[in-house]
């Protein structure tokens, strides 16, 4: 298979010095001694295809990029994993779907040509939205998450409502897509480029018919996928992609966005796609700092060394993942914060799931909120 050679070249795997820093940094390796990113790179460079592609561990990587952050040789580890998964997917390999494959089926169903979704039921009368507008709010799969994970108290639609409220407050009436599809992030990272492309095509068509020039997302995965992956498949976009953190931070800096007092001690969890993948570390913190009375206490593992929320792409979630999540939640509690803030609906789902542990539940309990909703509550007037 010549593709493997190209993958190695494209991801600089040949530059590996076999130093093992990646394995030291990897949260999976910490709890599963059999898992080693160094060995993956080794097998890649030595052409051990079977070990790479027919290996359950290929699907366990969190694609969190902590290893990549440490690698002095510039090996693009997460890209290597993504491309290897695409190859393996072509051979009929796949990871262990979580939730009985419900999310995979949802994503597949959303590739259908003729869908007439009812995904905007959350838009209440107090929110101003449009069908066409310069700015579009890309909601993501939040309407679905709230139904799928209602048993663990997931309410991500609060993020969506907050987003529209914040935009309205800033004088923006955003367009919403009645037939938005999943952005395809999780299919792409599971190696299923075929379905990914279909989802992307639908979304690009919808966005263009809404005449949007700027697409705002609250989900970092939607942000990264639209901004970085769509152009790789479809060429440059005729709209700009912005994460809510960037938009709000700019408005705070301009003095256009002010908050009222809220006496809370908080800590902030950097989502991988926002932090290490997009370099957005300062913006969320600038928003938090702009709320008078709020004290931000950092966790030891923050910014470039932030620990992942523990799972990815609705695959291979087990005890190791729960250990990572427990470590993160304990770390958050140890700061003495009242609230664990994050800027990603999925981080919130996975953490809430971990807190639902029958045995550890109480020990891991901490209030968790998205910066979008947190900022909405502190709006003046």
């Amino acid at each position, binding site marked *: 298979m010549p593709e493997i050679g190209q993958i190695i070249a494209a991801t600089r795997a040949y530059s590996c010095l076999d130093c093992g820093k990646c394995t030291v940094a990897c949260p999976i390796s910490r709890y599963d001694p059999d898992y080693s990113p160094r060995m993956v790179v080794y097998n890649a460079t030595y052409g051990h295809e079977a070990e790479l592609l027919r290996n359950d561990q290929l699907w366990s990587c969190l694609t969190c990029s902590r290893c990549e952050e440490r690698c002095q040789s510039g090996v693009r580890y997460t890209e290597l994993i993504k491309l290897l998964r695409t190859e393996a997917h072509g051979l009929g390999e796949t990871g262990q*779907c979580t*939730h*009985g*494959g*419900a999310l*995979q*089926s*949802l994503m*597949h*169903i*959303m*590739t*259908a*040509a*003729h*869908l*007439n*979704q*009812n*995904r905007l039921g959350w838009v209440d009368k107090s929110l101003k939205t449009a069908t066409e507008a310069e700015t579009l709010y890309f909601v993501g799969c939040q*309407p*679905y998450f709230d*139904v*799928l994970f*209602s048993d663990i108290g997931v309410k991500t639609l609060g993020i969506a409502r907050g987003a529209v409220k914040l935009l309205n407050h800033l004088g923006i009436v955003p367009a919403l897509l009645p037939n938005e599809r999943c952005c395809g992030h999780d299919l792409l990272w599971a190696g299923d480029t075929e379905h990914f492309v279909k989802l992307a095509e639908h979304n690009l068509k919808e966005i263009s018919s809404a005449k949007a020039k700027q697409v705002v997302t609250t989900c970092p995965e939607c942000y990264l996928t639209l901004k970085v992956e769509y152009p790789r498949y479809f060429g440059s976009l005729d709209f700009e992609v912005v994460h809510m953190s960037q938009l709000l931070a700019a408005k705070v800096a301009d003095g256009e966005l002010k908050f009222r007092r809220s006496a809370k001690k908080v800590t902030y969890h950097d989502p991988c796609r926002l932090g290490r993948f997009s370099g957005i570390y300062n913006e969320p913190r600038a928003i938090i700092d702009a709320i008078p009375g709020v004290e931000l206490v950092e966790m030891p593992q923050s910014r470039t060394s932030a620990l992942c929320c523990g799972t990815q792409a609705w695959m291979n979630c087990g005890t190791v993942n729960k250990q990572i999540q427990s470590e993160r939640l304990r770390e958050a509690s140890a700061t003495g914060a009242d609230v664990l803030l994050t800027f990603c609906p999925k981080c919130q789902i996975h953490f809430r799931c971990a807190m639902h542990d029958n045995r550890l539940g109480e020990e891991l309990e901490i209030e968790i909120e998205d910066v979008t909703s947190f900022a909405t509550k502190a709006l003046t007037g």
Partner: protein
Amino acid sequence: MTKPKEYQDIDFETRIVGFVCNWDAYSGVEMAGVNRKEYPTNVKLVKVMCLGRLHLGLILKAFELGADGVILLGCPPEDCHYESGTAMAKELFTQTKKVLNLLGIDQNRLALVEVPLGRGDLLAKQVSTFVRRVGRIGSSPLQSSVEAARLA
């Protein structure tokens, strides 16, 4: 295909998946066979140990693969062999309907029915009613995409 007289009005092209509980509901399937109670052949039955063992992923998979309707054949609550199976099935039914609604798939494409022990007549009747109901709604909006994928 020649159809029994009472099913002349049923479209046998309708694709239906039925999940059947191993206990009361499946005894209904067996009794329908023993007593020659006919029901439309376009229902593909999948036996599970309990409807409480089902989950959203399995039902969505049936729709993803082009099913026009899914019927869940369970037992009366007081007969459940695992005590809480029927309650879990009800919760799942409600959750799945919400997801179907979000997707814009007619919620009437999903049904949950109780079949008491040995009631083959009732099973045949429930299934036929459901096939008729789905037939009236028409083929699934996902069907054309499924066909396209099959031909590709």
